[in-house]
Each structure stands twice: as structure tokens, then as C-alpha cells.
């Protein structure tokens, strides 16, 4: 019997793989001091708000434990919950479609839009549709997709890619946003200032007319309740609610892991999510809909259930817990690596600590091999995670898998050779003592700062992104011999 290893998300479509490895992409980001300032300011602000509202609940840990168990229980019976969801949505007038991957989901949505005869759609911010590159697919088919979330609009107008799960334009400051609006927004007031309120008003004016005339909307979903067939979207601006209410046709693209078994489960997630993501007690807008309601809201509803590598992640005993993610982005905001590199360096629409474990599992580790190393393993992400995903352990496991896959290659990597050499040296006391003496030659470097910024090749690969400590004047063995006179 062969082991099921899953079918990863296909190449050549969507935004799960970057063009460069994380260290290469991060180098450019780290050199951008404006970007680092924007990110530092934004992540610290959200971090503070989160800590304050999480501190208000004395049952936060119990909620986390419930959320974690709920997700694990859902995954264990995922097929049954999805079938139930399909049944309930269908019974209430919705149509359910299944998509094996990004290409299939894009084709389904494109066909559904074409069947309405419309050539433009409004969009609710959604990670799933970013993941599959839906906007690009629609554009190829001559359909214009208008993002309506303020930050997503900034990204779209700027011809940019999102860099944060919740705040996709976190890498932009208000002066840059003003520039983008002046350049890209038709009919915008040329006197527009960089005041946040004025910028939001300009976006609202730009969008309002689109909301009122839109016939088709496309959304994602935060939750889908299997036993009632109810879909939920939570948001801050009300743009989502506009899209979910005013158009005639609504198409929702949802990852299969978003289903929750019962309505009662929402009482856990509707506490965990807003406090973790925006640092609010409740998100300003929560919209729930069940199939089609005659005379109220969209009269045609399509739900597209998306796999795109999720079952590949599900097949991994440990890695499957990455699918518990409710996309709150708390782990991004507390991550010392994300705070400095920003989201683009990760190459995937899922950046930060959760992205570093989720993206390689969706694509297969070798397609995102550098991401498991994009972490200091400090553990802040686990503490912040509202569903207790043990991200550091998953990262270590993915690193091990990457090393195993490298080992299977005929030509060993430089790292594998170095590790083999280290093993040979460290397995003999005499060889280790000799190596310690040799390392003292390194004291010629780093005399001024106490650290070595650049070693000669091939060790320069190590110091390309970190400093090496200057070797000590005396080894431990020498110190021991001197202090204890050879006595044991």
C-alpha cells in the first residue's frame, strides 16, 4: 500500500510561491528603511491593541483550548462536515461547487461570472482568492475585479502585492497611499491630503458608486457552519457587507478547512478572531447568510469549496494543525522576523510564521524550501496564536523534511558536507581539541567589535546574513586544565 502524500497546489497559478528565496528577498526588504519604519510602527500598534483586549478576558486560555480542540475535531471528520454543509446550502437555494485546485476554482468562478453576462465584479477581501490568483484569471477572461477593502484597494491601485493577511498594504504609509490615489483614482480631489480620514473618504466615494451598480460580488468566508449552511464574513469597513448584500449574484470561494460543525462553535471563534486580529472586542461588521433569502440580498448564491493543497497538508500528522489557522495574523504582528522583512519577502500570500508553515505544506516543501528557516524559533507566534498552533515545532519538522529531501539527492549540499565534517570532528576528543585550537586563528578577525561580520569563503555563506562570534582567547578545556590542574 502506498502512503497518501497529497496533491500540492499546482505551479504557474496563484500566489503561493515567490520568485526568490526568503534570504534573497529579505535582503532587499531589509535595506528599505522606509519599509522597516512603516512595519515597525504598524505591528507595534496592533500588538498593543491585541494585548490590551486579550487581557480583558480571564478565560482567554480556555477559549484557546476550545478553539484548538474544535479545529482538530473538525479536521478528523472534515469530509462529513463538508457534505453536511453542501446539503444545507443546497437545501436553502445555494449551489455548491468543488475545486481540486486554483485552476479549477478560477475556471468555475470565471464561468459563473460569464453566465451573468457581466464584465465587472466587486470583491470582498479574501485570502483564498488571492491565493489562487483569481483577479488575474478574471482579467484574462476580460472581467474587471474591483477590490473594495481599503487596504486591498491600495494594493490593487498601486499594482502591488499584499504583504499582510489582515492589512495587505501595511508596507505603505499614508503619504505613499495619497500618491497612489492621486495617480490611480479617476476624479479624485487633487487637493487630497494624507490625513487618514480624508484618504478613507476618497476611497469610500470611489467605491460607493461601484457598490450601488454592481451585479456580481465575489467573497471569501471566515467560517461556514455545517449544521445550518450559514456562511460568515467578518470585517472592519462595511465594504464586505455592501458586496454581500447589494449585488444580484454572490460567489464565495472558501478553503475546505473553514467549515465549523455547529453554530455554537462560533461563540468561541467570534471571541478569538477579532481580539487576535484587529485588537477589537468584536469586528465592526459580521455578516452571516444562509443560501438565498427571497427578496433580501443576492438571489443567486454559489459556494466554491477549494482544496488547492489543503489535503496534502491534512495528510501530515503534525503539519495538519497549520490548517487550524483562522487567518487572524497575530503571529505576523509579534514576529521579530516579519517585523523587519515584511510580507513580500515570504513570496506567498501567507507570510509570517503561519505562512512559513502553511505555504510549504500547500506547495510541497521543495517549492518553498527557504520558508521554514525564516524564523528565529523564539516562540512568540505560538503564544499569540488563538488556536494554539505550535508553529515553532512545525517549522523544525519542515526543516527536517527539507534536509531529508536534500539528503536523497545524489550530490550532497554544502550544508550536508559541513554537518558530516562537524560530526567527524566532534565524535573524537582529540580531533575536537585540535579543531578548537585551529578556531583560535579566527581571533584575527573581529578584534574591534567582538563579532565577525564577514568570514572568508566558504564560511562567508554563514556570515552573509549574520555575524559570527569572535572565538575566545582560551578554550573551555584549557580553562579547565588551568583552573583544576587536570584533576577530574
Amino acid at each position, binding site marked *: 500500500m502506498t502512503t497518501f502524500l497529497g496533491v500540492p497546489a499546482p505551479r504557474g497559478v496563484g500566489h503561493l510561491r515567490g520568485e526568490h528565496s526568503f534570504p534573497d528577498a529579505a535582503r532587499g526588504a531589509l535595506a528599505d528603511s522606509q519599509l522597516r519604519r512603516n512595519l515597525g510602527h504598524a505591528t507595534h500598534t496592533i500588538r498593543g491593541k491585541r494585548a490590551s483586549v486579550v487581557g480583558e478576558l480571564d478565560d482567554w486560555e*480556555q*477559549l484557546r483550548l476550545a478553539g484548538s480542540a474544535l479545529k482538530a*475535531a473538525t*479536521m*478528523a471528520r472534515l469530509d462529513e462536515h463538508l*457534505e453536511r454543509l453542501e446539503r444545507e446550502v443546497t437545501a436553502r437555494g445555494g449551489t455548491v461547487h*468543488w475545486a481540486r485546485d486554483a485552476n479549477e476554482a478560477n475556471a468555475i468562478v470565471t464561468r459563473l461570472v460569464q453566465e451573468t453576462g457581466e464584465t465587472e465584479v466587486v470583491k470582498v477581501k479574501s485570502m483564498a482568492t488571492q491565493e489562487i490568483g483569481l483577479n488575474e484569471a478574471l482579467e484574462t477572461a476580460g472581467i474587471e475585479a474591483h477590490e473594495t477593502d481599503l487596504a486591498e484597494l491600495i494594493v490593487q491601485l498601486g499594482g502591488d502585492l499584499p504583504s499582510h493577511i489582515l492589512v495587505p498594504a501595511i508596507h505603505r504609509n499614508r503619504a505613499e497611499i495619497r500618491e497612489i490615489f492621486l495617480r490611480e483614482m479617476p476624479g479624485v480631489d487633487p487637493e487630497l491630503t494624507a490625513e487618514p480620514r480624508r484618504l478613507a473618504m476618497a476611497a469610500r466615494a470611489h467605491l460607493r458608486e461601484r457598490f450601488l451598480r454592481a451585479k456580481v460580488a465575489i467573497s471569501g468566508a471566515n467560517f461556514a457552519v455545517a449544521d445550518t449552511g450559514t456562511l460568515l464574513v467578518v470585517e472592519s469597513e462595511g465594504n464586505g457587507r455592501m458586496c454581500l*448584500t*447589494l449585488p444580484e449574484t454572490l460567489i464565495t470561494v472558501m478553503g475546505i478547512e473553514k467549515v465549523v460543525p455547529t*453554530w455554537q462553535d462560533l461563540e468561541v471563534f467570534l471571541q478569538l478572531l477579532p481580539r487576535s486580529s484587529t485588537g477589537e472586542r468584536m469586528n465592526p461588521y459580521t455578516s452571516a447568510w444562509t443560501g438565498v433569502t427571497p427578496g433580501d440580498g443576492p438571489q443567486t448564491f454559489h459556494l466554491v469549496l477549494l482544496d488547492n493543497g489543503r489535503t496534502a497538508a491534512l495528510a501530515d500528522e503534525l503539519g495538519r494543525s497549520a490548517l487550524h489557522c483562522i487567518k487572524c495574523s497575530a503571529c505576523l504582528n509579534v514576529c521579530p522576523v516579519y517585523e523587519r522583512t515584511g510580507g513580500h519577502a515570504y513570496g506567498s500570500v501567507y507570510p509570517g510564521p503561519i505562512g512559513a508553515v502553511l505555504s510549504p505544506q500547500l506547495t510541497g516543501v521543495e517549492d518553498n524550501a527557504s520558508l521554514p528557516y525564516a524564523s528565529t524559533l523564539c516562540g512568540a507566534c505560538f503564544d499569540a496564536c488563538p488556536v494554539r498552533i505550535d508553529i515553532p515545532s512545525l517549522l523544525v519538522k519542515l526543516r527536517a523534511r527539507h534536509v531529508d529531501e536534500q539528503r536523497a539527492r545524489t550530490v550532497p549540499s554544502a550544508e550536508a558536507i559541513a554537518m558530516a565534517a562537524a560530526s567527524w570532528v566532534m565524535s573524537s576528543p582529540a580531533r575536537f581539541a585540535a579543531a578548537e585550537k585551529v578556531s583560535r586563528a579566527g581571533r584575527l578577525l573581529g578584534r574591534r567589535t567582538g563579532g565577525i561580520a564577514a568570514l572568508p569563503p566558504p564560511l562567508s555563506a554563514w556570515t552573509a546574513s549574520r555575524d559570527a562570534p569572535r572565538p575566545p582567547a582560551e578554550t573551555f578545556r584549557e580553562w579547565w586544565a588551568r583552573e583544576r590542574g587536570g584533576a577530574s
Partner: protein
Amino acid sequence: MTAREEVLGRIRAANAAAGHPPPPDVPRDYHRTGSHPAGAPELLALLRDRLVDYKATVLDAAADGVAEAVQIALTEVTGPVVVPPGLPAGWWPDGLAATRVTDDGLSPADLDATAAVLTGCAAACAVTGTIALDGSPDQGRRAITLVPDVHVCVVRAEQVVETVPESSPRWIRRARSRSSADRRPRATSSWSGWRACTARAR
């Protein structure tokens, strides 16, 4: 094989490959209720505090004084005011200069021409400052509370609960009944950035 069969098959194979992890019991020892019963004065004070924090205006009203409070809430509104077909009798202020428009399926453009909306609600959660609407006759279609800039929402004291677990069953109630086609849950929170007023009947 259809995509449906294939995805479901992959899920089953994946769960098998992961060793069929059993579904764990879900510990529900978080607070399922608050310290105060629905409508307690402490909850009304907390809700007011939260709503004001969201820049809403909160007015108090006795059970027979709703129309009076609504009139004050709508003082500065000059355009038409849309109301749901099931607006309770006695809520509309007779002395109001603004035109009353009862929703009968107004188009988005029609709604755009209205200045305010007056509705009831399904529940309010004091801890989070959230007001939930579920499309009942006193609340109407979702669109009417979405397009106008001002929403005057009457919250009855007994509709105010303390925690999220106490409030969410109140806005799903209508979804559980399968008998009628229009029983669908929908909900809204308060209105960030837009002017909103809440009259409360005691």
C-alpha cells in the same frame, strides 16, 4: 471522477495517512454566561459605554417614550427615512418633518436617496458593544440598514445580554426553523465611522 468525489476522497485518504486522529472532546469551560441577567442595569451601562466608544449616540427611553427618543435622534436628518414593513406601532414620531418610506423592495439607488433608517434589533452584546439584526419584520432587509448614513436602532432592555456565547443563539434562532423561506440569520455590529443613534426602551 468528479471534483467533489476526488476532494472528498483526498480528505479520507489524508486522514488515513495521518493515522485517523480521533476527534478530541471540546472543553467548553470558558464563560458561557456573564454575571448579569439580560437587561440588567449594569449591562445597559456597559453597552452604552461601548456604543459611545464606537461614536454612536445613545438615548434612553421609557417603553412608551420610543417615538420621542426617535424624534430627538432624527432631529438633524432632513431627507427621507426608510422603515421596515414590520415597524412596531408607536415607534414613528408623528411630529417628524422627514418623509417616512416603508421598504417594499427599494433598489440600491432608491436607498441611496434616503437619509436614515429606523429599525429594531435581534439582540445586543454588552461586552463587545455589538448589535445584531436577523431580518425579522421589525428590522427588514439587510440592505435598508446598510445604505443610509444614519441608523436609528431601538434596543429593548431585555435584548441586551452580557457575553458573546449568550448573544449568538439569539441571532441564529430564525435560521434553525426550516419552515419559512425567509428565515435566515444575518447580523450587523455597530457602525464605525457612520453616525448612528440608539434609542433604548426600558
